[in-house]
């Protein structure tokens, strides 16, 4: 796992040609942000704590995890809403809460925040038909499925709740949000493991570009912190196991002592909008989605190929679609899970930016909030948008002893204040599925 990896030579990759020639693209901007994270309920509270270098990790509180190989995770701070804790009643009546798995609750909460933040709550039928939802999840209602399976075995089929299936289905975040707000446009859900959030934003942006919708509510939600979730990821040797005495030190991307990712949970949702539509209604514009690239590894169910050429192809496709030079990228929010794959991603990014590596800042916010799986790409895209807004790159915590030398500034243990106009956000998932998003500051 800690063997040195060499990426000095340029990898020989076969790149699909991505061209904008002949395509009349509608521009897509971000006009609303919403988030439930292990640091806080809410975008601004999470961002403030992220920049301050806080960690969301701790011993698992929700259930007794002492018998599991990993007894720590990054749980959403549940409370009465004070001190930025997550109070589910702010988003869903108690009698409705028990009908949905936590990932739906988090997704609905983040969607509510994003929609309110955007100010887009149309009453007009035509506006509603032009507004869609694409909120995905990596796994969906894992906990509900586990509990219901036990109930079925112990007490028989007549005890299975009528809300079990609609409370566990991945696309029911999108369904619930559309029902609540009357959004009758495309209703869709991405399921690409840890790339879900990024794919959802990218795919939703394309629906707007193609004219299927003018506004899309897009993102990801996940609630994998359960006995079966931890046991399952432990079994495939993905999780950190050796930091039970110091959970906040467990997620340490690019550090020599990293030993796996730390499970997180929550949701990230953005409101995407066609540029002229946003301008016409005077919406606040955070950033423009200018590039999106996708690829498959065709290599292994859980591991990336040694040079991560799939990731590189996704990034290069996004750069080509954006119509920029890779050297224009100021900040990369890495997939950076705190696993052996961190340095492989680093190599792919180095090949992408070439001689511009010295001017690039890259960090992994998973060092602070853990890995939110299907929500990760959406939450991290929001961090990138805020990095553009506030001209600051969030830190990579616990990067005390880098596993590789690089000219790229990895924002070790401290935020980096700098010019940030163009960002790249990477997400890679089990099955070998890769997504790269590029966003840019909108001026004038």
């Amino acid at each position, binding site marked *: 796992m800690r063997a040195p990896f060499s990426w000095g030579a340029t990898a020989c990759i076969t790149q699909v040609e991505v061209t904008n020639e002949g395509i009349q693209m509608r521009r897509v901007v971000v006009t609303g942000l919403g988030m439930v994270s292990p640091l806080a309920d809410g975008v601004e509270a999470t961002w403030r704590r992220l920049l301050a270098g806080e960690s969301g990790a701790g011993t698992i509180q929700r259930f007794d995890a002492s018998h599991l190989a990993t007894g720590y995770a990054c749980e959403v701070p549940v409370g009465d809403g004070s001190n930025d804790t997550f109070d589910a009643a702010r988003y869903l009546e108690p009698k*409705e809460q028990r009908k949905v798995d936590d990932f739906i609750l988090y997704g609905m909460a983040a969607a509510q925040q994003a929609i309110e933040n955007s100010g887009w709550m149309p009453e007009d039928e035509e506006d509603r038909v032009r507004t869609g939802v694409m909120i995905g999840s990596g796994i969906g209602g894992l906990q509900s499925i586990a509990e219901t399976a036990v109930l079925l075995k112990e007490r028989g089929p007549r*005890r299975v709740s*009528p809300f079990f299936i609609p409370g566990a289905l991945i696309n029911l975040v999108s369904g619930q949000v559309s029902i609540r707000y009357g959004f009758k446009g495309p209703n869709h859900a991405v399921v690409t493991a840890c790339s879900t959030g990024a794919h959802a934003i990218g795919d939703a942006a394309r629906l707007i570009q193609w004219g299927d919708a003018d506004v899309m509510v897009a993102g990801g939600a996940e609630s994998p912190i359960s006995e079966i979730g931890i046991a399952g990821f432990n079994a495939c040797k993905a999780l950190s196991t050796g930091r039970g005495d110091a959970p906040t030190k467990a997620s340490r991307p690019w550090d020599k002592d990293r030993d796996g990712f730390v499970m997180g949970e929550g949701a990230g949702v953005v409101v995407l909008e066609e540029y002229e539509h946003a301008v016409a209604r005077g919406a606040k514009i955070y950033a423009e989605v200018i590039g999106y690239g996708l690829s498959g590894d065709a290599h292994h169910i859980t591991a990336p190929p040694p040079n991560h050429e799939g990731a590189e192809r996704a990034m290069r496709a996004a750069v080509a679609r954006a119509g920029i030079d890779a050297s224009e990228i100021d900040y990369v929010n890495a997939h950076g899970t705190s696993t052996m794959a961190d340095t492989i991603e680093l190599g792919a990014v180095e090949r992408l930016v070439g001689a511009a590596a010295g001017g690039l800042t890259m960090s992994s916010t998973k060092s602070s909030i853990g890995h939110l799986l299907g929500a990760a790409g959406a939450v991290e895209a929001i961090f990138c948008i805020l990095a553009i807004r506030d001209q600051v790159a969030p830190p990579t915590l616990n990067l005390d002893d880098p596993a590789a030398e690089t000219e790229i500034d990895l924002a070790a243990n401290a935020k980096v204040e700098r010019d940030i106009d163009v960002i790249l956000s990477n997400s890679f998932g089990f099955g070998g599925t890769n997504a790269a998003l590029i966003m840019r500051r909108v001026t004038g």
Partner: protein
Amino acid sequence: MSDSIADRVKKIVVEHLGVEEDKVTENASFIDDLGADSLDTVELVMAFEEEFGIEIPDDAAETIQTFGDAVKFITEAS
């Protein structure tokens, strides 16, 4: 002890449908008056079965439309 059964049924209805107790009257229809949908009524019947240790067959469940229907059925079945 029939009022005890009625109280227990009322408590379940209030909890599951999130309605005010005074709305749960003899002739109150779960769907028309108390805001339940078809899935809610399935869950209500399951909750009655659980609370009273009885089995309510599907064809009987379909006849339980109001609070009064539920109390009557459960009183007879208990």
